[in-house]
């Protein structure tokens, strides 16, 4: 298959190998600090690619996408505290959480998608914000009915940094391969057509509604998976934290900065975001928005196609390489 020789796939494999090496080398004590950064970047790439499926590929900006990460974290809490309440940690616990987190996120997206995907533009964006809040307050309500005031701290599972790393790595590999396949397949072609002109796409034979629903569901499924390593790593389920609109903001920023409609854009965007975030990190992380905010405004006003899109336009010869 030609798909496997294309730059996006090669880039995915290279990324996977790099993070594999970091994971193995990170067993040595003095490299432990890198492990933390590597986990963060994997997660930010994962978030960016999850949203990319619906925002960057299909053109529907979901402003409440944190809801699916939150559902993943919630289901992890359910797995640890309710489904396997006295088990010591095993791989199967991670797998159950992953299936449950991704599955419930996908189900919610599928059900809600029937309604919200009939909306466009700002209406869709606002509906997704509404969804985020419904689930957030439902989570808080559920916890309070169980007599817990958030956050819900998990029992001690005695996990090491390495085990967190391999959880992130697992989800990272799945994300890259699934999203690349979506982008490069006929499905990705159809989504691109929807993004560019939905009516024309429908008339040309793209089952636009089904495709949008599939894209939204898959996008939620991946975001849901990312809630699982997050929850394990922080050993808690804090609704205000995981459902925070700021998480949606990060995903949107990554996609915008990197460039819509490409596979590499969100990945590049994730690194840029993470780099800026770290270099700007003041006493208070939120202060970094003083720089990120104007950055978004400038990009939208001057280079709306994002960094990768801009490179593609500026250097047509790179079009093929920067897919």
């Amino acid at each position, binding site marked *: 298959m030609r798909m496997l020789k294309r730059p996006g796939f090669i880039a995915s494999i290279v990324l996977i190998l790099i993070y594999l090496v970091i994971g193995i080398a990170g067993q040595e004590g003095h490299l432990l600090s890198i492990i933390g950064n590597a986990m963060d970047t994997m997660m930010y790439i994962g978030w960016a690619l999850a949203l990319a499926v619906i925002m960057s590929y299909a053109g529907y900006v979901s402003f409440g996408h944190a809801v699916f990460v939150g559902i993943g974290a919630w289901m992890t809490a359910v797995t640890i505290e309710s489904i396997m309440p006295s088990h010591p940690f095993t791989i199967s616990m991670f797998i159950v959480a992953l299936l449950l987190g991704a599955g419930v996120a996908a189900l919610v997206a599928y059900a809600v998608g029937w309604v919200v995907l009939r909306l466009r*533009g700002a209406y869709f964006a606002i509906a997704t914000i509404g969804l985020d809040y419904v689930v957030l*307050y439902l989570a808080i309500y559920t916890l309070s009915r169980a007599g817990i005031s958030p956050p819900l701290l998990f029992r001690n599972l005695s996990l090491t940094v390495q085990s967190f790393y391999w959880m992130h790595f697992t989800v990272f590999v799945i994300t890259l391969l699934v999203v690349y396949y979506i982008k490069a397949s006929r499905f990705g072609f159809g989504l691109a057509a929807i993004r560019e002109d939905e009516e024309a796409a429908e008339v040309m034979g793209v089952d636009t509604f089904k495709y949008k629903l599939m894209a939204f569901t898959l996008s939620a499924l991946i975001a849901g998976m990312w809630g699982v390593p997050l929850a394990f790593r922080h050993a808690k389920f804090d609704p205000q934290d995981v459902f*925070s609109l700021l998480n949606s903001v990060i995903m949107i920023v990554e996609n915008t900065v990197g460039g819509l409609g490409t596979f590499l854009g969100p990945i590049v965007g994730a690194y840029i975001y993470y780099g800026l975030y770290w270099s700007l990190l003041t006493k208070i992380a939120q202060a970094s928005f003083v720089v990120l905010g104007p950055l978004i405004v400038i990009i939208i006003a001057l280079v709306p196609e994002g960094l990768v899109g801009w490179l593609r336009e500026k250097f047509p010869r790179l079009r093929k390489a920067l897919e």
Partner: protein
Amino acid sequence: MVVTAAELARGFIEGLLYGSLLGAISVGLTLIWGVMKVVNLAHGHLIVLAAMFTANFYVLYKVALLNPMGAIITMGILGVVMGALLYYTSVHPIIGHVDVITLKHEMATLMATFGFGLTLFGLHYALAAWTSWYSTEPGISWSFGHPPYVMIGSTITIVKTKILVGIISFVIAFALFALVRLTNLGLMIQAVTQDSRALALVGIDPVRIKLLTTIISVAFAMSTGPLYLAWAGSVTPLKESIIAPLAFVIVVAGGLGSIMGSYVAGLILGLTYELVVATTQEVSIALVVTFLILLLILALKPTGLFGYLDDRLASALRRRRGVAE
């Protein structure tokens, strides 16, 4: 759990007052979104900015913004500056000279105003980090009279501040309605949506009108910041994530572009919220209900419920003044 009639009655009255505030918070948004098709995601941040500044400067210089009216006017004036800033950074570069606003433009202004709002959000933390006096969690208490509350019957007490907030909110919402529907300036603002080329022909610069619309929207939004502060007693930058979504719910429910429609939708939402709180004693479930209402309205009637209100009211008022239509 038994809910007493007194609690319900109190929920009802506070709901109307709170709804009035929510309505006032939303009217600026329905103007800029309805007229200019700019989905201003900085709206909530601008209101929070006004509330934060009011609280912080109140603490710093006790006199300057001592009374609510002074704060409302000061923030309205600051809103003029912020509106111009918002227009020239996040709106003009994208739709300044555009006649027909497509979905792509709409999404672009949405993203740009989102970036603008994020900047304001970060500003509070930056100010707090770099100065010694700026607080990201300022509190303030404005209370009036002795006693500072009103008794209704023998058990229901309503704080006077809340009553005042409810009344001033109505005045603000109605003032914007009058400005947009009953003045010549308002007619020009509305014309810009219909046909900006026709405007240009009669010698009115559409860009000027767009700038003005943005300024009016932001000035009215920011003038409600002190009201929110007075109601809640404290504010943090994170409150934006409650204010903005509520404003969006209200604007959609009220019928995009309809000022009094938004106000009425605000009343209903405030009422629903306070009544659910009064019956369940659970804030979280009240918020679940609020946002479920949003999803329902978007699903069933995305064109809103009260879009006709402005037209009806405007023609009724004009008739009373004896102006031929």
